[in-house]
């Protein structure tokens, strides 16, 4: 009779393996048989079964001091291994507690195929097709929501008492007042950088004064509305989507519907109106801060007086340019708030969907801002 002892590190399971005369392999497990110690046991027993080809396998659990469910699973796997090799298997000296634990394991569950198979993999063409269909569906939903939103805006303008003005003022503060410091800083630096970079070129031709025109015109016509819209999309569009999305997840939107409220009117209109009122103002502030940034470079670096710089700035654009910038920013505001609310209403499922809605709101807003800006550029080109 040969006896093999495998001593392992302290705290790990100890395998003491004994081969009996009648070719019965008796494996004695001692110590802890747990999640931390099971890893080497099954491979070792597999090797032993291969090497010794015993006529019977017996596990002696008398020396076990602790066994968890992972240990119990290991015993079942050893049994399966023996059965596969047609070796009769038995366990001896199993404590009552270990038996209780073994009873907790549903053996059928270990081999049961998933009821819901993993997501099928589709080919590239099918993937492109599915994505295209999803895109078209999304465009359709956005258009539908836009129609509903425009109808609600018109209805609210005709019946202003139905608008929740308290909420509107609250959102005006969130979108406008709270966003002003960061917008001011970014616009100021943008004006400063534009003036500095353009001055490097214009200086060579003695055309320093045109730095003021460049900054003023660029900001009022294009960059002011765009930088404001991008910032509002990032700050507020995503927040609107997350807020309404969370309300969807918590069934608060359903509660509103059952109480007889129109969720678009109740939740979206105050946000859209707030954005419509404050984004044009923010745009004007953005223009102003950028002009101050340019002024700083003009006065400090180009020896232009404050009066000359401002006079040149004022002469570079017309009131019409300011007005179109403001109108453009109002359209951006409706798009940002509208798409933010729409993405929020589209949320299905859990918290991850809320995050996706916020991201999607920003991406869609940026896309719409660029498309709208291009459209305005073409139209205004003919009007001017």
């Amino acid at each position, binding site marked *: 009779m040969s006896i093999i002892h495998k001593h392992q590190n302290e705290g790990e399971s100890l395998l003491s393996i004994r081969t009996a005369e009648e070719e019965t392999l008796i494996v004695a497990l001692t110590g802890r048989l747990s999640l931390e110690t099971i890893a080497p046991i099954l491979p070792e027993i597999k090797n032993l079964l291969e090497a010794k080809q015993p006529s019977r396998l017996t596990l002696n659990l008398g020396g076990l001091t602790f066994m968890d469910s992972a240990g119990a699973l290991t015993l079942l*796997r050893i049994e399966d291994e023996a059965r596969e090799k047609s070796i009769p298997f038995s366990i001896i000296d199993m404590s009552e507690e270990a038996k209780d634990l073994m009873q*907790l394991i549903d053996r059928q569950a*270990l081999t049961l*195929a*998933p009821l819901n198979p993993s997501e099928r993999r589709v080919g590239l063409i099918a993937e492109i097709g599915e994505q295209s269909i999803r895109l078209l569906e999304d465009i359709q939903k956005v258009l539908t929501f836009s129609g509903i939103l425009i109808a609600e805006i018109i209805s609210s303008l005709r019946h202003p008492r139905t608008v929740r003005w308290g909420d509107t003022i609250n959102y005006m503060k969130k979108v406008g007042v709270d966003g002003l410091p960061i917008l001011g800083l970014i616009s100021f630096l943008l004006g400063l950088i534009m003036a500095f970079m353009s001055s490097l070129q214009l200086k060579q031709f003695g055309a320093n004064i045109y730095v003021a025109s460049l900054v003023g015109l660029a900001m009022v016509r294009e960059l002011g509305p765009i930088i404001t819209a991008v910032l509002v999309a990032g700050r507020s569009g995503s927040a609107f989507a997350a807020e309404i999305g969370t309300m969807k997840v918590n069934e608060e939107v359903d509660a509103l519907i059952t109480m007889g409220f129109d969720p678009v009117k109740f939740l979206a209109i105050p946000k859209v109106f707030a954005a419509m009122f404050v984004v044009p103002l923010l745009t004007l502030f953005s223009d102003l801060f950028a002009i101050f940034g340019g002024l700083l470079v003009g006065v400090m670096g180009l020896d232009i007086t404050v009066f000359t710089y401002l006079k040149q700035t004022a002469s570079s654009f017309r009131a019409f340019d300011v007005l179109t910038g403001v109108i453009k920013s109002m359209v951006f505001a409706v798009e940002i708030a509208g798409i933010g609310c729409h993405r929020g209403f589209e949320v299905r499922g859990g918290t991850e969907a809320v995050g996706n809605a916020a991201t999607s709101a920003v991406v869609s807003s940026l896309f719409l801002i660029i498309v709208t800006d291009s459209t305005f550029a073409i139209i205004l080109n003919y009007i001017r």
Partner: protein
Amino acid sequence: MTEGNKTVLRDREAVIKVEDLTVRYGENTILDKVSLEVFQGEVLVVAGGSGCGKSTLLKHIIGLARPLAGRIWINGVDITEAEDEQLAEVRKKMGVLFQSSALFGSMNLSENIILPLLTFTDLPSETINLIMKMKLGMVGLAGYENHFPDELSGGMQKRAGIARAIVMDPQILFFDEPSASLDPITAAGIDNLILNINHGMGTTMVIVTHELQSIFTVAQRIILLDKSKKGIIAEGTPLELKEHSTDPLVRKFFNREAA
């Protein structure tokens, strides 16, 4: 099979010891000098009306909040003073079923369950997969590994939450309102599951609930908290308290009388 006796309560080592725990939110005292012990392998129910501090007590015991005063020992480690690493080690021996189940919505059940195994063990993926299947089988969700939490009913989510909580075979399991918002049949199923796990795995259990039916089904011992007293008003087996307590607050709780 555990390192301890499962039948005698008081002779056993206390795995959780709370001493003079005081919790205050602003001026509002929630718990005032609460002390208790939980013994190896027992099922302790912490009960009481809404706002009595049950969940607050649980949050402090599992180390999610630090108390204003008092000490909490888990397996001899004072978690009120413990460093983050020490606390993380203590938490590895704990499993928690939150009231909302708190399954990760972006992961399917399989991914939810195997997360700790992948992070804290070096087991081969085949073994990890089998452990996951075994745990799902234990909670009666065999075959549901590819389902996402939002595809499951409330009761199934609770079961999945339990499967995740027991995946590392914790020494102590905490349940926050395990049968809240479940129908009586589903709630009874969860209660049976709790009893089976306690019997099969010998896990110490602390259950926060106010469901009388659950209390009588699972509790070996009950601690009753009360809002007005800001602490424990009674302790014993559910039957002892229901039949023999003379405290009007205790009688009110068991007789479901309005405050």
